[in-house]
C-alpha cells in the first residue's frame, strides 16, 4: 500500500474548506425564501447530492466501458467506487427531497415521474451490489458488473429529463417547468451563487471520496492477493 499522496491531502483540505463555506452560505448568506420558508434551504444540498449521484453513475458507466475495452481490473475498482459513493449520495437526495416535499407539498412521497424514476435508479444500483455478490469469479464479476453499470446508466438521463418531458409537480430549477410544478421559486442572485457553490463543493467531495475509495479498493485487492499467497 502506497503512502497517501500529497495531492490527496491537499484535496482533502480544499474540500473541507469548500464544505464549510458552502454550509455557511446555505445558512447565513442565502436569503429566506418568501413562500416555503426555511425548508427551501434543503434544496441547495439536495440538488448537489443528486448531482454527485448522477456524476458517479456516469463515471461508473465510463469505467465499465474502459474495463470492457482494456480489460484492466483497475477500471472495475474505479467503477464500484463510483457506484458506491453515488448510491449513498443519491439516497441522501431522495430522502432529503422527501423531507422537502413534506414541508412544501404536505406529503412525504408521491408517485410523480421524477420521484418514481429516481427511486428506480436507486433500486437498479442496489441490484448492482447484489449481482456482484452472486458472482464468484472476479473476471466474470468485473465484466458483468461493467455491462450492468453501462445499461443502468440509461436510467439516469431519463430521470434528469423526466421533469421536462412528463407532467410533474417536481419543480424545474434550470429552464422552464410545467405549470403543474409545485414549490418552484425564482432564485435571487445570492440563492443562485449558493446553489452554484454547493454544486462545485459537492463535485470536489465526489472527487475526494472517489480517490479515497479507489485507494481502499486497491488495498482490498492487495490484501486478498496476499491472503491467497499466504494460504498456499
Amino acid at each position, binding site marked *: 500500500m502506497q503512502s497517501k499522496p500529497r495531492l490527496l491531502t491537499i484535496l482533502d483540505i480544499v474540500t473541507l474548506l469548500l464544505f464549510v463555506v458552502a454550509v455557511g452560505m446555505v445558512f447565513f448568506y442565502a436569503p429566506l425564501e418568501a413562500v*416555503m*420558508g426555511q*425548508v427551501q434551504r434543503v434544496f441547495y444540498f*439536495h440538488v448537489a447530492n443528486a448531482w454527485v449521484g448522477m456524476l458517479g453513475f456516469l463515471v461508473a458507466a465510463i469505467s465499465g466501458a474502459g474495463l470492457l475495452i482494456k480489460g484492466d481490473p483497475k477500471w472495475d475498482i474505479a467503477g464500484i467506487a463510483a457506484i458506491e459513493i453515488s448510491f449513498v449520495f443519491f439516497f441522501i437526495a431522495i430522502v432529503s427531497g422527501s*423531507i422537502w416535499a413534506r414541508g412544501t407539498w404536505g406529503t412525504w412521497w408521491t408517485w410523480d415521474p421524477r420521484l418514481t424514476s429516481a427511486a428506480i435508479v436507486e433500486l437498479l444500483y442496489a441490484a448492482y451490489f447484489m449481482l456482484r455478490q452472486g458472482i464468484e469469479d472476479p473476471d466474470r464479476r468485473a465484466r458483468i458488473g461493467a455491462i450492468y453499470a453501462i445499461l443502468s446508466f440509461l436510467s439516469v438521463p431519463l430521470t434528469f429529463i423526466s421533469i421536462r418531458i412528463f407532467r410533474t409537480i417536481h419543480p424545474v430549477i434550470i429552464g422552464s417547468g410545467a405549470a403543474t410544478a409545485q414549490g418552484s421559486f425564482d432564485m435571487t442572485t445570492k440563492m443562485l451563487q449558493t446553489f452554484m457553490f454547493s454544486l462545485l463543493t459537492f463535485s470536489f467531495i465526489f472527487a475526494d471520496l472517489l480517490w479515497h475509495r479507489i485507494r481502499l479498493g486497491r488495498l482490498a485487492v492487495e*490484501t486478498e492477493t496476499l491472503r491467497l499467497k499466504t494460504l498456499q
Partner: protein
Amino acid sequence: MMMLAIQQAPAETTIYMIAGYSVIFGVMLVYIISLIVRNRNLKRDMQSLHELEEQAK
C-alpha cells in the same frame, strides 16, 4: 389586516430543514466513518498477513 400579514409570512418549515440537514450530514458522516473503518481493518489484515508470511520464512 392581521390575516393579510399572516398569509404573507413564509411558511414555518424550520423542523423540515433541520430534519433534511440531519439526514444529509448524518448519512455523509456515516459513510466517511465506514471508509475509515474499512481502511483501518484492511491495513490491520495486511499487517497480520505480512507477519504470517515472515513467520513462514
